[in-house]
């Protein structure tokens, strides 16, 4: 007789049941339920933070800066210097921001795990009922959902991961590292900021200004199209909206630069 491969998920070498001190009696059902609901809502808001693309930030920041400085009749060298300084400053600012953001997510997650354990300890029925309700909403029959939710804690690491993903929408495997996020952000912002700056290395004046605008416009169309496509919306509409945003921001900044340059230049 040949051994058939074991079907289903790969079993861990040894399962570790979730055994934490559980209060014998639930003292405040309503308060536990409200605490869980509030935490879930809070995480949902935090998790939905705007996924701003570094490339886009670099584009908008630098084209606006270059147009403002050019609008104030600065020399080609000064525009180039200002644009380059903006590229460096923006890149590092983005990298630092992203590092803090991802680091906070990691800390938030470990805080959530502690909170989850506290809730299981205080009111295990609440957590099991929540998981069961989520599984039912996913499409499982009630008995299957109830059986699954009571069987999951037989392996603590997977139970915690599943509960956190289901109740809080955070997957610990997808948090990433702060260093990688910072590096990616830095590179993306720098790439975006370089686009409107490139013409000023070869030419200057009105030609360089127009080239900055055209290159930024083209890059905005590409970025807007990619963002829309990845979010499942119309590519053309997303690209044009991105172009409009960049054009609007640039026009306002150029106008302010001109007014400022006229006033103090």
């Amino acid at each position, binding site marked *: 007789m040949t051994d058939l491969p074991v079907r289903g998920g790969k079993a861990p070498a040894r399962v570790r049941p*979730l055994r934490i001190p559980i209060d*014998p009696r639930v003292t405040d059902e309503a308060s536990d339920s409200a605490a869980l609901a509030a935490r879930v809502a809070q995480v949902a808001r935090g998790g939905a933070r705007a996924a701003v693309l570094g490339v886009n930030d670099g584009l908008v920041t630098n084209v606006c800066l270059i147009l403002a400085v050019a609008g104030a009749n600065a020399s080609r060298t000064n525009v180039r210097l200002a644009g380059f300084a903006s590229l460096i400053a923006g890149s590092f600012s983005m990298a630092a921001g992203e590092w803090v953001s991802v680091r906070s997510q990691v800390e938030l997650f470990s805080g959530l795990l502690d909170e989850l354990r506290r809730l299981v300890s205080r009111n295990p029925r609440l957590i099991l009922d929540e998981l069961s309700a989520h599984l039912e909403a996913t499409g499982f029959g009630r008995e299957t959902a109830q059986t699954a939710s009571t069987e999951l804690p*037989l392996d603590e690491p997977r139970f915690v991961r599943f509960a956190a993903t289901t109740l809080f929408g955070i997957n610990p495997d997808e948090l990433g590292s702060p260093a990688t996020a910072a590096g990616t952000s830095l590179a993306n912002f720098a790439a975006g900021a370089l686009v409107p700056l490139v013409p000023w290395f070869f030419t200057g004046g009105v030609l360089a200004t127009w080239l900055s605008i055209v290159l930024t416009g083209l890059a905005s169309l590409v970025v807007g199209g990619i963002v829309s496509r990845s979010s499942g919306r119309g590519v053309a509409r997303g690209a044009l909206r991105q172009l409009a945003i960049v054009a609007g921001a640039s026009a306002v900044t150029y106008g302010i630069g001109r007014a400022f340059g006229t006033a103090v230049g």
Partner: protein
Amino acid sequence: VLYPGTPAPEFTLPDQNGNAVSLAGQRGHWVLLWWYPKASTPGCTVEGQALRDKADDFRSVDCVVIGISFDTSADNKVFADTQEFGFALLSDLDHEVGRSYEVRRRPDDQYAEFPLRTSYLIDPDGVIRKAYAVADVAGQPEGVLKDLAELSAGT
């Protein structure tokens, strides 16, 4: 799972305090034998709490509640003491009683070391009258008490 009408397999096992408890010793009383996968885990705790909170109702219909698992007596003692259970928790360390009650999982099941969450309602003559694959751990007592009332009325 053993079907209703089957004589409940006999056993003598240690409870959480090391005292031997046998099924034969419960003759003349109804017995709810609830198999749970693992002491002190959330599902088993909620199941035990629900049975604990209905202890008076089970007593009033002359039903003895007995928990049973593959845990050690020491683990069961911590479980029973923490949760203030007034009933016995038995240790079937070699899984032999589990085998006779057909609550062992397949060897290739990742949770093979834990019994299935199955409860048996055994009548005063030692015959299984109901078998439950328990999914709703908190709602189990109501269903069992309802069955007990119907079965008692029929006997």
